[in-house]
């Protein structure tokens, strides 16, 4: 096992060892792209991808151990990073079989390579201590996604979906870059944060948080920077009003790919937001409280509209797209709580837990839909699920459990996640100062109730309705297996959420377990 001393080598070697999982995944992706032109085979490249991700997860787990001191520089190796770097490869391992089973042997290597790239991209985003690296990480998620959208489905609707995603994603990247350039202009820095001991080199966030800095002279410029950065990330998070592409693209692509879109870009966007706003570091208030208000508004609009629109949907993937919009709203709500302080664990831990929980439940749901989808007779409308309970009991129970989880029923991981976000908003010290955060908690409860409508509607169709027409064949068993694993994890982590608590967030000099969350107030 590599030790701290071995990896503390500064310079290229040390860095490449420390960022080993990501560099390894990127290298493996290149190998897969290249090898795929010579050797074709779904099984082979699928296995290569899963094993590679397994190694990445293992290596990240070692690095999250206590032997490795957190550092923050160009690369941030802190608790947020070590948490995300574990979640991402694990969810990638669940994602790969679903995607690979949807394509033929010719495209298998390409889709595996793209998935590996995207996983590396989310990981890099979580480690980004610099705007340049942050953008690189985000693009490492976006660019493979364009390719994957085309690989997964290439009829006319698929092409339309790909084009829509491509155009709007580029638009949002431009918005992000515009905002980032303003940040650079304001501070003359691209480094977000720096922990150099002499205090001479300071990052954007430290400079902005410093009362003596110039930001109070230019609040509008700062606001423009902040808003453009958030707007650029909002498309990935599917925050309203940047969500428009989601239902169309989910509907126009394959179910497995919709599952990919529901988590990986969203995770990248949320984590990038965490980094840019400095919520992971517990600085003062670099944006003078503006960021909290803006995210509060986005969270409320996003979860409410997402849920209200999901009620209307007849297409299964469109409904889940809006459900994903609403779930993104809950995570934004968690970020609106703000960073950890000495008294309060803040919203970052609950957000990361929610992100992991949502990933498991969402991938499970899409895995089952992919499994049920027969190219001859696609499962498109929600009524296509009618009577599924008797035809495919394991699949329908797995789907039902994942839906229960997204709804937030007790004994699922979704309950714990929602309870944490809710409590983070209710126990927040800001709740005492302004009632805004408390209202957010109430709105979450209201939205959870609206969510019950359409989630339970699906369960109702599966178990209490008779099938409406002839039934298609089920797909590859590997997708069923992935869905089943997700369903089991949903229940298991709902009973023993502390198993998700391998990582800890050290903030404000205190240790807060991410879960069992959950320690909202640091023990004296």
């Amino acid at each position: 096992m590599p030790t701290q001393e071995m990896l503390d080598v500064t310079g290229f070697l040390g860095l490449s060892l420390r960022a080993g999982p990501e560099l390894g995944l990127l290298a493996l992706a290149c190998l897969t792209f290249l090898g795929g032109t010579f050797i074709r085979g779904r099984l082979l490249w699928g296995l290569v991808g899963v094993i590679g991700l397994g190694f990445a997860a293992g290596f990240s787990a070692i690095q999250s151990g206590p032997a490795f001191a957190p550092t923050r520089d160009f690369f941030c190796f802190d608790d947020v990073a070590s948490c995300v770097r574990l979640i991402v490869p694990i969810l990638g391992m669940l994602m790969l079989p679903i995607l690979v089973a949807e394509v033929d042997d010719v495209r298998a290597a390409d889709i595996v390579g793209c998935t590996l790239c995207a996983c590396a991209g989310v990981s890099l985003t979580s480690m980004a201590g610099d705007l340049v690296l942050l953008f690189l990480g985000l693009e490492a998620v976006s660019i493979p996604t364009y390719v994957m959208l085309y690989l997964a489905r290439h009829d006319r609707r698929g092409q339309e979906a790909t084009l829509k995603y491509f155009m709007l994603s580029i638009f949002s990247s431009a918005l992000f870059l515009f905002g980032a350039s303003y940040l650079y202009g304001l501070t003359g820095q691209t480094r977000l944060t720096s922990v150099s001991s002499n205090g001479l080199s300071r990052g954007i966030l430290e400079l902005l948080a410093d009362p003596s800095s110039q930001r109070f002279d230019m609040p509008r410029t700062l606001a423009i920077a902040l808003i453009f950065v958030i707007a650029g990330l909002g498309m990935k998070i599917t925050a309203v009003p940047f969500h428009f592409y989601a239902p169309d693209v989910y509907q126009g692509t394959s179910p497995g790919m919709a599952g990919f879109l529901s988590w990986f870009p969203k995770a990248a966007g949320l984590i990038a937001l965490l980094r840019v706003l400095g919520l992971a570091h517990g600085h003062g208030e670099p944006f003078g409280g503006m960021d909290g208000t803006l995210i509060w508004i986005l969270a409320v609009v996003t979860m409410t509209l997402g849920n209200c629109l999901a009620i209307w949907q007849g297409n299964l993937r469109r409904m889940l797209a809006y459900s994903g919009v609403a779930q993104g709203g809950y995570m934004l709500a968690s970020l609106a709580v703000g960073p950890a302080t000495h008294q309060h664990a803040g919203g970052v831990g609950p957000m990361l837990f929610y992100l992991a929980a949502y990933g498991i439940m969402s991938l499970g749901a899409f895995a089952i839909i992919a499994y049920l989808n027969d190219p001859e007779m696609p499962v498109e409308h929600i009524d296509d699920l009618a009577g599924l309970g008797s035809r495919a009991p394991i699949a329908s129970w797995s789907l039902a459990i994942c839906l229960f989880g997204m709804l937030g029923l007790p004994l699922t991981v979704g309950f714990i996640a929602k309870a944490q976000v809710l409590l983070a908003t209710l126990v927040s010290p800001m709740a005492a100062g302004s009632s805004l955060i408390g209202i957010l908690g109430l709105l979450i409860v209201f939205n959870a109730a609206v969510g019950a409508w359409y989630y339970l509607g699906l369960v109702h169709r599966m178990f209490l309705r008779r099938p409406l027409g002839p039934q298609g064949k089920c797909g590859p068993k590997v997708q069923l297996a992935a869905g089943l694993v997700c369903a089991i994890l949903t229940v298991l982590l709902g009973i023993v959420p502390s198993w998700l608590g391998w990582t800890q967030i050290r903030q404000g000099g205190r240790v807060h377990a991410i879960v069992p969350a959950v320690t909202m107030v640091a023990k004296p």
Partner: protein
Amino acid sequence: MFELSSEVLSGLALCVPVLPLIAAVVSAVLGSTRPSLAPLVASIGVLGAFAASLLLLLATAGHGGAAHIFHYGTWFTISHHSIDWEIRLDALATAMVCMVTFISFWIVIFSQGYMDGDLGSARFFSLVSLFVGAMAILVLANSLVVMFLGWEGVGVCSYLLVGFWFRKPEAAAAARKAFLVTRLGDVALLGALLLLACQPGSRALTFDAVFSAHLDAGIVYFVLLLLLIGAVGKSAQFPLHVWLPDAMEGPTPVSALIHAATMVTAGVYLLARFFPGMTGESVDLSRLDAIASVQDLAGGLGAITALSAAIMAMGQSDLKRVLAYSTLSQLGYMFMVLGVSGEPRGEHLPQEVIGVAAFASIFHLLTHAFFKALLFLSAGSVMHAMGHIIDMNRFGGLRRLMPITHASFLVGALALAGFPPLSGFFSKDEILLELWNGSLTGGPRSAFFAILFSVGLITAGLTAYYIFRAYFKTFHGEEKIPHEAGHHAHESPRSMTVPLMVLAVCSVVVGLAVGPTGILHHYLSHSSHWHLHESAFSVNIPMILGVLAAFTGVAVAWMLHKAAASTAKKRSMGLFESLADNRLYIDGLYLATLVRPLAALGSVVGWLDRELISPLIELGATVPRMVGGRFRSAQNGLLQFYALAMALGLIVILAMFTVAR
């Protein structure tokens, strides 16, 4: 009896809830492929749980004292409340799980014969196991939140089991009613938990922590009041009793399970824990006063239920409904005695008085479980033979046809009526004695207790009457068999008669074995927070009065039965005959005094519901749809528009943050 290490105890305690839960999952999974294995799996699971709880009982019988608390892990932590997976094993919990698993096991065995050939019987056995598991969680939980989980689990299982034949509209309606009415109570219970959680300085929501916390008398009052409402819902006391008689629509073994071992006992169990527990260690008069005022309510509701349910049972022609009302009435007894509040009496501390009262209710709960399960299973056996006909007017004189069922029903009826030395006698006597003692103190509440005592006495007489009326109608007189019975009209198979015989033996001996010998008293005195003082068994006035009432009831039932039999021949109507033929007098009385006013109240409530509540709810339901509908048109599928909308959204936000400042 013997020593077991703490690890072994902890493992055994875990087995009690976990084995039935595993059995539930396994039989559900097996259900689709090999439904014939489901009963076996369920009975193994429940038997395993019983074996574990019996071992726990024996191992803890010798040395009591403090409760064992076994920690298995943390569920989650909310601010400073840690919700743990913990089992709290004390004498009361052990005795309860022993009873629950033992009776459930025999009910499962009985069901194998009863449910034979029913489609979906795998679902049935899976749910029964789940029911037992949930009840075990409820009884054993250390954290109140985990207890609530079991409480809800029991509610859900009863919903699914009462509505087991969901294609029957009555069954579906009964299931919904049971669920909704008990939910009312559940909300109150949740309120009590939240109230406790909000108390400053409350660190953990466990029984011990709550009992030892320094709570305001007002808080104690509201917590107990909410708990009482929860218990009233679950234990089907007036005015939330309406679900229990309808719950008969489920398969008969389910009725036995709900009425005897699980579900309805939960409310009594909860109060028997909380009333003595909340007194605290020292005598705090304001706190005792708060407890006493809730206890008054419990006693009053119990008395109303006991008497009115007994009256209702007298008029029923449906055998299962007689038993259902009898359950209500008997639970009313338990609530009545829980109402005995701790006025200092002689040399005994108030805590001791409340403890003894709680003991009396739990004693009756335990014995009642045995004979009520026996009665229900006997009725099930009759039903099985009569082709699912349960109207007592349609059959009669079955004693030669079904000798074992006849004998076991007779034993159950004698026990219920409180004949010495059957089990119901000792426990009912304990309740009457407590009420009698309470009325003799001369304190401000003695008149109240005197009323409760006389209600108990009258109910004892009525109980003996209605159960023997049902017994004579079913098993005596001319042999009458409905045509639906077909070739079924014979004694039930072995798998059904053996449980009957076992439970009959238990109904005879359990009371005698543990009551007058003081075994149960001594064992339960180890339960924490119960300050039981040693007492010796003796013949006393309430006991004699109770037995007299029981004899009178049986004699009246017999005379009326004879008279009714002769009217059938002679057509001459005396007073008793007309009473016997015209149950309608009682039905009519009940109709005029209770049903009509309640129906009027119901129509008012219904009007309010239709005109006021529903529009409000519908408004709440339409708003999200309306909001969604407004914004739907924006989703027009055009890429240019999406980009434009994003840009417009951006501009709006920019305007908000830059122009406004």
